């Protein structure tokens, strides 16, 4: 069966985001099950006209489905839906950003007993950050203590959502039988062994007045998003279609969150939720996406999901399969056909599309082409995640060019040869997936060093090496990426002269070094009258840059320096590229010591989210870590504290924060800048460096 570019307006790319115990897996399985069932039913009927039945074996197999793939393709009532796996655990990695980027909408799953917990807050914050419209599903209405009304209050107070109930439950806890749809004003029950038969009835009389009251509230909230509905409500004749449209407007503009409920485990409420996905969440053409034109001064270009524009796709996830690398892509513009040539704008290389695949829950399907908005996979393509593929002739990129420099490094040592091979494979993969993660072999110590954006970031990869690649490694002490800089302008005048038989070496450089406020390094050439021949100017520049690689206080790179060259001398025979490089390097070293060099340390922007009752302890914990609190925002019972804290002080903060908040607070951090290390700490670092050097030489 080949499907060519389904109607984009029917397509949905959604994520299911949830707190860890809210039943995300069960709900996802149920969604796959019902979608498959509907799809199958349809097919079977088409062939022989007999209603679909499934034997229990098959059923069990279906139930065992868990989403391990980065995108699973299903169909609900003629609507193709891609369910995208959203890793919710580490929120500072680029991987999460990419998954969220390919979503057009999301279901936020909440537990009817637990309500909005701290992890739901993190997940919701991520979705908010990427402007993902969402609908909420209050799960586990069959549990003891279920209270969807409390959860909706949480949605309003803790997450700041304009949450609007679209359904009310028919019974809760043990008595949870079904739901009332407030738009159609019908009771919905789920019959059959797996709740696959949706039965619609009149609302039970005892719930009639409650339903009417809630419908009024719903209409009140929803009329905000449609003048047409507003008028219809005033005339007391709103149609279902008008309400749907208004809810859709409110949801897509992220000004309201429609709330649904049920119990995935008890097969209640899932089909209406799927109806809501196709009814209220945006299709790919509702969402504006942008790329940057590398051929046109990085101009921002709006991508067109319709029409004949050239193809643009983003590789958002790589997976290692038994047959090699699987690259998941989302197509943003144009279409991709088997055999097409595509251009990888990062590698500057063209490649041919061999196999184009759609991932279903239980199988893969080879397809011939895919259109805008679709999520498909390519086999055996050389690329890294985050790469942009375009039609040859276009030079767009979907990801920002800026990749922050790693701020922390860790030595890793494989325990045996087997682990060593596996580690190499793992590192090769990780560095492809995540540009903020790097690895290299240190030439001095011969150790493998991994680098990243924080302690947790590296922890995750060390853990993944063990789990996914069976690479058991020992880790050293995390090392912070210090920098060195100067604080004063100093002149230099250096003569490099060597006369040891044969041709000698001669070069003289004069100039100054001074602090540079913005940027890492600047070279200014003010040589006049050929005092240094033009061909040796680049040699000088090279020499200075070589000296920057390793500062003389603690051996870290030097930055924030402007070097001005204004005079010099050369010799007709003895001057050479090498002589000038050496002169520049030595001149720099000499001047550097006099220029009051200082050590810089990475400062992180830290955001802590915590129940307000622990805010005091959070303030104290930041204070103890040489942190500066920038702001604290209190919203209801929750506080968000933003601070700047030196990275070296952040080691072990996750544990510290967990214990001081009974596990209820969490934090994120990202690199902000390098700043000067206080005197007393600088002294310790210098002593440590000297000791290390002494050991190395002895």
């Amino acid at each position, binding site marked *: 069966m080949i499907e060519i570019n389904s109607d984009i307006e029917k397509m949905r790319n959604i994520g299911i985001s949830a707190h860890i115990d809210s039943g995300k897996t069960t709900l996802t399985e149920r969604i796959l099950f019902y979608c498959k069932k509907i799809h199958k039913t349809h097919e079977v009927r088409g062939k022989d006209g007999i209603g679909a039945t499934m034997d229990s074996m098959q059923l069990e197999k279906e139930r065992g489905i868990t989403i391990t793939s980065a995108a699973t393709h299903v169909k609900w009532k003629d609507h193709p839906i891609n369910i995208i796996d959203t890793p919710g655990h580490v929120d500072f990695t680029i991987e999460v950003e990419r998954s969220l980027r390919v979503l057009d909408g999301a279901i936020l799953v909440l537990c009817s007993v637990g309500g909005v917990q701290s992890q739901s807050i993190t997940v919701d914050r991520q979705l908010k950050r990427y402007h993902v419209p969402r609908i909420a599903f209050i799960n586990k209405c069959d549990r003891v203590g279920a209270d969807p009304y409390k959860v909706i209050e949480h949605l309003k107070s803790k997450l700041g959502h304009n949450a609007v109930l679209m359904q009310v439950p028919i019974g809760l806890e043990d008595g949870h039988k079904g739901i009332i749809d407030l738009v159609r004003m019908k009771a919905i029950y789920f019959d059959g062994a797996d709740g696959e038969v949706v039965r619609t009835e009149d609302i039970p009389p005892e719930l009639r007045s409650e339903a009417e009251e809630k419908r009024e509230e719903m209409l009140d909230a929803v009329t905000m998003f449609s003048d047409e509905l507003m008028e219809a409500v005033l005339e007391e004749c709103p149609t279902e279609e008008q309400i749907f449209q208004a809810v859709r407007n409110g949801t897509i503009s992220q000004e309201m969150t429609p709330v649904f409920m049920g119990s995935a485990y008890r097969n209640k409420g899932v089909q209406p939720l799927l109806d809501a996905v196709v009814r209220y969440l945006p299709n790919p053409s509702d969402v504006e996406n942008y790329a940057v034109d590398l051929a046109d001064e990085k101009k921002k270009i709006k991508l067109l999901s319709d029409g004949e524009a050239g193809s643009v796709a983003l590789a958002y996830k790589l997976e290692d399969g038994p047959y090699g690398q699987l690259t998941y892509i989302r197509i943003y513009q144009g279409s991709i056909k088997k055999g097409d040539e595509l251009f990888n704008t990062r590698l500057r290389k063209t490649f041919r599309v061999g196999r184009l695949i759609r991932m279903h829950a239980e199988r893969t399907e080879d397809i011939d082409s895919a259109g805008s908005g679709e999520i498909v996979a390519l086999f055996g393509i050389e690329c890294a995640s985050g790469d942009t593929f375009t039609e040859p002739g276009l030079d767009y990129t979907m990801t920002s060019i800026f990749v922050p420099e790693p701020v922390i490094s860790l030595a890793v040592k494989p325990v045996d040869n087997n682990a060593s091979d596996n580690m190499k494979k793992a590192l090769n993969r990780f560095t492809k997936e995540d540009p903020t993660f790097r690895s290299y072999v240190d030439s001095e110590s011969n150790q493998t060093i991994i680098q990243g954006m924080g302690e947790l970031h590296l922890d995750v990869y060390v853990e993944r090496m063990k789990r996914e690649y069976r690479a058991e490694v020992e880790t050293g002490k995390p090392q912070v990426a210090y920098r060195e800089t100067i604080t004063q302008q100093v002149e230099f005048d250096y003569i490099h002269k060597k006369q040891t038989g044969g041709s000698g070496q001669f070069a003289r450089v004069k100039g100054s070094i001074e602090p540079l406020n913005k940027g890492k390094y600047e070279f200014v050439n003010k040589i006049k009258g050929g005092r240094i021949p033009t061909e040796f100017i680049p040699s000088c520049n090279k020499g200075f840059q070589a000296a920057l690689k390793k500062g003389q206080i603690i051996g870290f790179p030097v930055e924030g320096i402007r070097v001005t060259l204004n005079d010099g001398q050369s010799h007709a025979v003895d001057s050479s590229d090498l002589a000038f490089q050496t002169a520049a390097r030595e001149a720099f070293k000499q001047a550097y010591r006099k220029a009051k060099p200082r050590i810089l340390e990475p400062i992180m922007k830290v955001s802590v989210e915590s129940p307000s009752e622990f805010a005091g302890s959070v*303030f104290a914990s930041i204070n103890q870590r040489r942190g500066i609190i*920038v702001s*604290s925002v209190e919203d209801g019972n929750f*506080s968000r504290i933003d601070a700047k804290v030196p990275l070296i002080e952040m080691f072990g903060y996750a544990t510290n924060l967990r214990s001081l908040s009974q596990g209820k607070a969490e934090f994120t951090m990202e690199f902000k800048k390098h700043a000067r290390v206080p005197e007393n700490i600088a002294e310790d670092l210098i002593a440590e460096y000297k000791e290390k050097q002494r050991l190395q030489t002895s």
Partner: protein
Amino acid sequence: MVKKELIKRSPLRILEKSIQGGLGKGNIGVLASRKGVGKTASLVHIATDKLFQKKPVIHVSYASRVDYIINWYEDIFKEISKKRKLESAIEVHDEIIKNRIIMNFSQEGARTEQVLKSLEVMITQGKFAAEAVIVDGYDFAKASVDDLRKFREFAEKMGIEVWFSASLRGNEPIFDKDGIPKVLINYLDEIAVLLTLSFKGEYIGLNLVKNHNFPPQGELPLKLDPATMLIAEE
């Protein structure tokens, strides 16, 4: 100009002189005007002046977003350093932001007890020795005298001075015959210093309508420069 000179020559010295050397610890000062005249800018100028003197300040806001307030501080700092040609402005800037914390209470109608509790926690557990607290966006029309008393008692207990902004709304006249904003009349016992901002033809002038227990001076020789939003000499 070096920082020391800048502090000495600040027009805020004129204000201090007019109010007997300053607001003083344990006291409440209020800056009142209609919306959009320049209350926030003036409060941020007052706060920045404290920060120049290495006095830690907490800026409490009920309405604005944090980044919006930070932008105010950045703008005011930029204007001051430009106007006075401040030397080593970057170092001074880095130094002053260490002494500033912004606390935002975004929930509508955050209770005074809760706000004061959070402030106290910040000062004690966070070891942030604030000397002044700026409160912006506080709604005097909805609050009670009791609330403001709690603020004053807190100021006394912690040894800090507290500056409020008061937004004046409603139909004219919004001032009584002594130039006191009508909405603040009930609060007068709790307020040590009361300043109002008003249009004086071409510019915005500062009026001192309550001056501790001394007779208020009325119009001060200070104005708000509309281009920079800084308090300046007339």
